[in-house]
């Protein structure tokens, strides 16, 4: 667990911080520069039959996958054991749930990409930016799901695989305390490394693609009154607004 090379240092010690800066800085920049372009860029107006199947399949699958990643990466194995969850139980439930969610996500994105390619109007509004994003997104899903299938197969066949909760998870947590445990990640299996790189790539793209819409999930909608009232901007933020404060007229 001790030895790692300069490549490992670069990939697992430096790159995560570069990505972090890109995500945070990118989001701030995008918000300041491009609030208007911050949207889902929905194509439902053009085609809705396939979208109504593919999009929920993909998004709900993805939500489960995200929860799975959060649990797997952020909760140390000592904690789940302390809760009385055996490693076997944890692995079986994680693998099965992960497989179902992963397949939903993959099926969803496959349907969506196929729709995007074959529906004329949808394809014609697809930018290069979108295409790059789809490649990275699909690669991240495929590597993750492929890895899960492979490990599930090995486990079913009675073999042993490296436990990511002893390698990837400690490394991921160590990033946030600014003391990256490069050695832990360097010791993990190659598929994990590949998937982690894809994940980093996807994160780096987040602020600069249509994926930003994930950051405007409208949770506040649940807690606000139905009808929103707003006064005209009190500041002359935009051109053409009177600089004087409004008089009340009496």
């Amino acid at each position: 667990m001790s030895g790692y090379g300069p490549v490992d240092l670069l990939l697992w010690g430096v790159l995560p911080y570069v990505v972090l800066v890109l995500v945070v800085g990118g989001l701030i920049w995008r918000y300041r520069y491009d609030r208007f372009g911050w949207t889902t860029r929905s194509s439902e107006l053009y085609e809705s039959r396939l979208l109504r199947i593919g999009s929920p399949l993909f998004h709900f699958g993805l939500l489960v996958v995200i929860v799975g990643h959060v649990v797997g990466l952020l909760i140390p194995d000592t904690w789940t054991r302390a809760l009385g969850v055996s490693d076997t139980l944890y692995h079986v439930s994680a693998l099965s749930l992960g497989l179902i969610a992963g397949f939903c996500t993959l099926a969803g994105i496959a349907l969506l990409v196929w729709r995007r390619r074959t529906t004329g109007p949808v394809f014609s509004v697809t930018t290069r930016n979108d295409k790059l994003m789809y490649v990275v997104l699909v690669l991240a899903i495929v590597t993750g799901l492929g890895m899960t299938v492979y490990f599930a197969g090995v486990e079913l066949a009675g073999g042993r695989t490296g436990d990511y909760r002893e390698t990837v998870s400690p490394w991921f947590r160590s990033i946030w305390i600014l003391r990256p445990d490069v050695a832990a990640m360097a010791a993990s299996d190659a598929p994990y490394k590949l998937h982690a790189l894809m994940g980093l790539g996807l994160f780096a793209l987040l602020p600069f693609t249509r994926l930003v819409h994930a950051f405007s999930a409208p949770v506040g909608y649940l807690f606000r009154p139905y009808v929103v009232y707003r006064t005209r901007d009190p500041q002359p933020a935009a051109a053409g607004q009177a600089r004087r404060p409004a008089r009340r007229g009496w």
Partner: protein
Amino acid sequence: MKDAGTSRSTGERDTRPIGRVMAQVAMVMNLDKCIGCHTCSVTCKQAWTNRSGVEYAWFNNVETRPGQGYPRTYQDQERWKGGWVRRPDGTLVPRSGGRLKRLATIFANPVMPSIQDYYEPWTYDYDTLINAPAGDDFPVAEPRSALTGRPMKVEWSANWDDDLGGGPELASQDPIVRRLGDKVRLSFEDTFMFYLPRICEHCLNPSCVATCPSGALYKRVEDGIVLVDQDRCRGWRMCVTGCPYKKIYFNHKTGKAEKCTFCYPRVEVGMPTICSETCVGRLRYLGVVLYDADRVGEAASVEDEKDLYEAQLGVFLDPDDPAVRAAARRDGIPDRWVDSAARSPVYALAERFRVALPLHPEYRTMPMVWYIPPLSPVVDTLTRTGHDGEDKDNLFGAIDTLRIPVEYLAELFTAGDTGPVDLVLRRLAAMRSYMRRINLGQERDESIASDVGMTGGEIEDMYRLLALAKYDERYVVPTAYGVDEADRGVIEEVGCSLDFDGGPGMGGMGGEVPFGEASGRPDEASVETFHALRERQTAEGRSGTGGRVNLLNWDGNGRPDGLFPPREGGDTDDERGGDPGPREEGRT
């Protein structure tokens, strides 16, 4: 029926204290005058939606009724799920579902109209006309889809069924005709049609606002205009479903919702909306209505749909009532606005004369663009059968017997209750008979007025508003700023209109943008507007904007260059005899 107009006298008015007073700039359209010329639609489009992404968006459209409307069958809320429904416990919830259901369906809106329900926008391959190689055939500009650029067959558009209203093939697809069932016979003798111009209703209880997950849609406190904050819209598309009038359009290029703005940059400086300004029939009226915001929810959730019209009238406040004036002052409504509300033609037509009705009150959104239902189908039928179409008794009898148009109108304006429609038509008929006697030099006949619960004086006032009203009487719009006639042109209206954050003055705009044509900060709608306004307000005489006419800035004053092509002979003197002079003398 006779006393319906006076049933809600101030004496029996709700004795509860007046709640929060709010002001709404509202509109009334007199359908008898609409000739279906679509000038409003075209000028609106020129001003607001002549961009790619909103080719199919008509903030203002004119529908032939009976007909399917735009988008097709939008009034069928069983299908499109717009507006509100009243739950058994008396509370309102959007028909498309409450908050949790909305978020659960956010990844694919289950009931959003597709572009085919509007129409596939197209252009023509004009290039062929110029560049086609010499040949035997005459080159033709073929239609090309504005979505894909491919050749397409044009099969439908915003007004494909224009003027075909009474025809059996199309009328039978009208959701209202379907609901009325076999009561409507579409035989040739019984056909009728009229035009229905529609803009956003700027509702008091807007369901589009309620369904916006991002909180980007809002109702402006000052003037009640419902707007989309383009910087906060995230393109979830729920408002498209939420609006029962389908007056929110999804810009497929920018991925954001857009809607009728009530021409707020114009209204803010006291000018009428473009659709009103350019209306050939002069059938639109603009004015302020004061209302009690605390009672809107209660009024919108009355149990019986047929009570919604009266309930909405009950929310309006009388600007001449001293208690209302005091409450308005308490709630920060400028006196100028209250004074304006007292002169409001909208309030007069809706509440004083009771001849304007809301469009589809049963959607429970409390719409604020009201309509004077057309008497013409009745008069036409009467005249066709050889009767005197303006005789009081003939007209009253005809209104009673011509059930088809009345019931159809009632489905549009009063949730199916023919009573109020009947009263309106009788009042309009009475006005014709009463004024005809005056025109013929006969005595005034008070009995005609009292038959419909009015006085002769009221009828003459109504006649003045409906038939004669000049520009200043039709459009009573107070300015949003503390600007009056007195200090017009003197005050500093704007600072530098270009140095807003990211604006041209700050080095923004122009050049390549990384996320496609729609990214980056949008042009501020008012940049050009206010340059033009300042120029106009500070100029000595009547002036134009020079060279190009932006309808958003045009107030009908003078004749700017570029509005009309230059005349032959190169004579540029605009004010020569023979030309129609500036319209409506006496305006300031």
